[in-house]
């Protein structure tokens, strides 16, 4: 599975958007399977699902090119798949299998596939923002024009590392795209209870940084905004803070039924489901419903087949637990 790259300028062809749709379906089915796996107890620990946020993952990663890096959070299954990690090895990691992306040593919250540019999922809020700055610094140091895309949630904008990272990236004019997926809740708390502003991208102003506040459920909008931020980074114009307003359909984690959400809120957001929005646009552009349905069915079958493959893999050899502490 490769990332769904798209043109660096001009109109995006319908064929590319169909690829985006397929990838969004795959992520949705992947997350639904994950939920089943956790619910029936066949996988361990916790998981943080991203149903409803597929457009930020797919639209953002589509604006990258080979050699660019992507880092994300523990709610990162979608981003890692969007960057091109294979479905089966991603399932395998979550199931703790030998053939998982990290050999079963990372799990749901640490999915990483450096071979496709997915440099890591980090589970300490905000901790990876300085690392994303370092990835960009490394590119600058070697005179490369590659950029560093860094996903994080709204909650991360209240932690110190966010501010240190944005400040350093801006003062060094580094090619970082800070991509805030504002899903309106930091764990169980609505944003207004924890944060005195509603547009988090306004924090870019403190760092003399370019910003964009966008509809995170419209993959076209996400792609365009990220493409512009990537262009700025490559051109040496410095970092950008993108805030994509979106919504997670599920609770914070496996054990959260999300009862704190006001009645009707989820239903309103479901009307703006990113997959529904994209399908409607494609239908409007002349794509037959039959083709859309077929793409969805194919995606589901690929996900189910990948899960079957992952289930067939062995557990990690016990000796591997001692490997990779040091080089």
């Amino acid at each position, binding site marked *: 599975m490769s990332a769904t790259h798209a043109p660096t300028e001009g109109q995006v062809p319908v064929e590319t958007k169909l690829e985006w749709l397929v990838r969004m379906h795959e992520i949705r089915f992947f997350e639904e399977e994950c939920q089943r796996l956790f619910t029936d107890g066949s996988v361990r620990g916790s998981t943080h699902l991203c149903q409803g946020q597929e457009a930020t993952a797919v639209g953002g990663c589509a604006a990258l090119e080979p050699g660019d890096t992507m880092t994300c959070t523990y709610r990162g299954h979608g981003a890692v798949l969007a960057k091109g990690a294979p479905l089966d090895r991603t399932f395998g990691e979550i199931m703790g299998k030998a053939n998982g992306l990290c050999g079963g040593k990372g799990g749901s919250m640490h999915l990483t596939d450096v071979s496709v540019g997915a440099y890591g999922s980090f589970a300490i809020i905000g901790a990876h923002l300085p690392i994303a700055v370092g990835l960009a610094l490394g590119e600058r*140091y070697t005179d490369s024009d590659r950029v560093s895309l860094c996903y994080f949630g709204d909650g991360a904008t209240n932690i110190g590392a966010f501010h240190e990272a944005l400040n350093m990236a801006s003062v060094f004019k580094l090619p970082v795209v800070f991509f805030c997926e504002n899903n309106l809740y930091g764990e169980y708390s609505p944003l207004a209870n924890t944060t005195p502003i509603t547009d988090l991208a306004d924090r870019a102003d403190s760092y003399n940084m370019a910003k964009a506040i966008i509809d995170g459920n419209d993959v076209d909008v996400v792609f365009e905004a990220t493409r512009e931020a990537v262009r700025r980074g490559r051109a040496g114009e410095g970092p950008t803070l993108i805030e994509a307003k979106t919504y997670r359909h599920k609770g914070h984690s496996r054990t959260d039924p999300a009862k704190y959400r006001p009645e009707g809120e989820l239903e309103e957001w479901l009307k703006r489901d990113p997959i529904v929005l994209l399908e409607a646009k494609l239908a409007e552009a002349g794509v037959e419903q039959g083709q859309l349905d077929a793409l969805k069915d194919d995606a589901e079958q690929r996900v189910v087949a990948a899960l079957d493959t992952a289930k067939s893999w062995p557990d990690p050899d016990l000796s591997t637990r001692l490997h990779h502490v040091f080089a």
Partner: protein
Amino acid sequence: MSTITPEAATTTATYRQAIIRALGDELEADPSVFLLGEDVGAAGGPFKMTDGLYERFGAGRVMDTPISEQAIVGAAIGAAVKGLRPVGEIMFADFAGVCFDGIANELAKYRYMTGGQVTLPVTLRLGGGVGAGFGAQHSQNAENWFLNVPGLKLVTPATPADAYGLLRASIQDPDPVLFFEHKHLFNHKGPFPERPAIVPLGVADVVRAGTDVTLVGTQAMRFKAERAAEALADEGISVEVIDPRTIAPFDHATVIDSVQRTGRLIVLQEASPDGSWGASVISRVVQENFEYLDAPPRLHAADDTPVPYAENLETAWMPTVRTIVEAVRATVAY
């Protein structure tokens, strides 16, 4: 041996000069090495530990950063993942508290939790050490904070030659290294060969041979141990002094070999006793070499308090030559 090898010419250098030389030599030898930290560039370092390097190598390789320890550590991690060898400076080791997450949760674990997909040749230089009147937040030796974090190498040089050799080894090492520089030793002068050697990590130095008791200490404690050993020699007590030089990996073999001969062990530590490398060394000797011991091993550590400011309080807080001599006498008399 019939071949005569002329001794390499030896001069002297201070600890600070040795560190500047090591950084300069690594910057010279490897274009992927760069320095970053607060005022390490144009100002030559808050302690002048990078003096002249900005002029030699330029702002692109000796980078002044904001006062942002989390960003310094993160930037070093990211750049290392991209194949570079960053050397970050945390001005005072105490400030590691600000970026503890970056060191303990990211730097130390990133390789492991990705199943070996990344390599992290990061060196962080941290100024530690008691004895200069800096008070509780600018004095402590922080290496024990990191003792229980698998994935880090902890280096504690005492002499100028070791500071040079261990720093070069740290920068060349493929793994994360915390390199603790002792503030009270910055102006310490010692023998320094014209062509100083790289000193491998994890190899202790038997500083003085002895038969009655083994004294183990790093940095300033190593020198106090030597002075105590000198004084005790007049009383007919023969003290072996070992400087581990690195806390992790720790050269247990050298310590155990010594204790098997002396039967007595005292570990000196310029830090509080609990949860420390000194406690770990004693634990290991007791577990594995109990039958060789003629007296209970002793951890002669600092008081279990923060570092006080007033000179007499600060001096009394940690082992001194006098208290070390007393500890050795008591152990020998057991």
